[in-house]
């Protein structure tokens, strides 16, 4: 884990309000990154956004030593980030958190992403090239649909849905999953998305408790390294609820253990 200066190589719009930023560490030294880990990026020169913003690492190009992450503009911090230009310098800390882990025996892996929750999932393709992936992606409407090509190329099957039915199957991603899970019968599920989606997912998975589910959790953070205890996530283990640190003990937890 290091905190250093990066050069912005790119900051492109993927769709309305969603961007992909690519950074290169100015030290030239690249840390080794595990899939599902995140980075914390400063918002340059803003007195109203002092804290670094945590973003899942979307892709890491070892040859070019470039790291990219995708983000949605949800507040002042991300709004300012969206205006950062190519060539600008900004600071960040990486790699942070635990990441996804696929065991040897887990061959068939289903990825379930809701909206911008698809971003942390993409990094598993490269980390586990020998697995068979099924992707289920859900968005609000057609204009929010992004990165389907990227996921399709690397999945043996892609199920796309929009809430309003304007593209792919109509309805929530969790309903699409319910219709298809018995047919796919994965060894493992990796997911990320908004809280209501995760709650619905928990409900769907009630019937398949033998399928482990790893979820990447989002929470407001401060230090990003596990010291300040700001990003608490209630986790139930052996009947006891304890607060875990999303930035350090997570962001990936077992969906069954997370109290939503």
């Amino acid at each position, binding site marked *: 884990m290091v905190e250093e200066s990066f050069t912005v190589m790119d900051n492109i719009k993927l769709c309305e309000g969603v961007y992909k930023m690519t950074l290169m560490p100015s030290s030239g030294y690249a840390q080794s990154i595990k899939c599902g880990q995140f980075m914390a990026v400063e918002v340059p020169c803003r007195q109203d956004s*002092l804290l670094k913003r945590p973003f899942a690492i979307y892709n890491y190009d070892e040859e070019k030593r470039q790291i990219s992450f995708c983000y949605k503009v949800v507040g002042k911090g991300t709004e300012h980030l969206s205006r950062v230009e190519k060539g600008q310098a900004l600071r960040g800390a990486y790699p942070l958190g635990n990441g996804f882990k696929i065991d040897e025996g887990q061959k068939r892996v289903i990825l379930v992403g809701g909206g911008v929750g698809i971003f942390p999932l993409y990094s598993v393709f490269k980390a586990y090239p020998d697995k068979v992936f099924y992707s289920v992606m859900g968005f609000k409407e057609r204009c929010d649909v992004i990165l389907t090509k990227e996921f399709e190329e690397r999945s043996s099957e892609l199920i796309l849905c929009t809430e309003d039915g304007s593209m792919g199957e109509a309805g929530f991603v969790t309903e699409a999953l319910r219709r298809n899970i018995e047919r796919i019968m994965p060894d493992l599920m990796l997911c990320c998305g908004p809280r209501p989606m995760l709650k619905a997912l928990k409900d769907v998975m009630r019937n398949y408790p033998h399928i482990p589910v790893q979820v990447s959790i989002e929470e407001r953070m401060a*230090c990003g390294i596990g010291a300040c205890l700001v990003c608490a996530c209630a986790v139930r283990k052996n009947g006891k609820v304890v607060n875990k640190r999303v930035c350090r003990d997570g962001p990936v937890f077992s969906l069954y253990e997370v109290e939503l």
Partner: protein
Amino acid sequence: MANLEVTFCGKKFKNPVIAASGTFGFGREYAEVYDISALGGIATKGITLKRREGNSPPRIAETYGGILNSVGLQNPGVREFLEKELGFLKSHGTVVIVNIAGSTEGEYCEMARLISRSEADMIELNISCPNVKEGGLTFGSRPESIESITRLVKASMEGDMPLIVKLSPNVASISEVAVAAEEGGADAVSLINTITGMAVDVRTRRPVLANITGGLSGPCIKPIALRMVYEAYRAVKIPIIGMGGIMTAEDAVEFMLCGASLVQVGTANLIRLDACKRIIEGLEKYCLENGIKDISELTGSLITE
């Protein structure tokens, strides 16, 4: 090269910079980022007698020039701290200050007794946590109760471990509470703790923090903190640790000029992980450029006439 070393309550600090309680955990995470033995001292995350899980999230909100937190004293409890964390902290050759918070006098005294027997260097009495009902602020807002809790805690300590009383800014008169701590037998005071505040989300019409209110820290509180250190310095004879929004070496110097012998750096650690280290380097540079041979010369040397 200037002498940055400060002797404070008989303890030798390599330099006047202490990582402030609640922003540095027990040092483990920051030790992965830089060599924390560079620090003058480390004030631990607030410890309570029993383990605490803290408040519900969101526990953090940003405001202009600052942050609000409502962590709520999440910690493993004093026994687990002494068993599993203190040894690691001590191994870095920096002064270890254990910050303690209780909900009763008995809890404070029991913790102080346990810690005074340990290899920790100092205790910081947190009677000013704004984020839990029983977080000590009930003890920390009135001069009479500050004097009484300080006296009780001091009496329960074994050996000669110094006791620092951390003062809340949420009081009518900072000089009065500083004097109360001194009269209760405090060896030093540290100030200021966070200022109680809140943030509102106009879209959801809800408070940003689940706890509704939180403790404000960061550069926006520095002018208030400086004024309070200045007032406390004129009111008491015991030494002062100054804090509140220190981001740079210049900020630290300002606190020293107003009367602080040492400083604590909190929020800055969250913004830049190596903030303390940079401030120490900056202090060295400041001394060099301004012909300061011994950094302690700065303490209280503000020119007001």
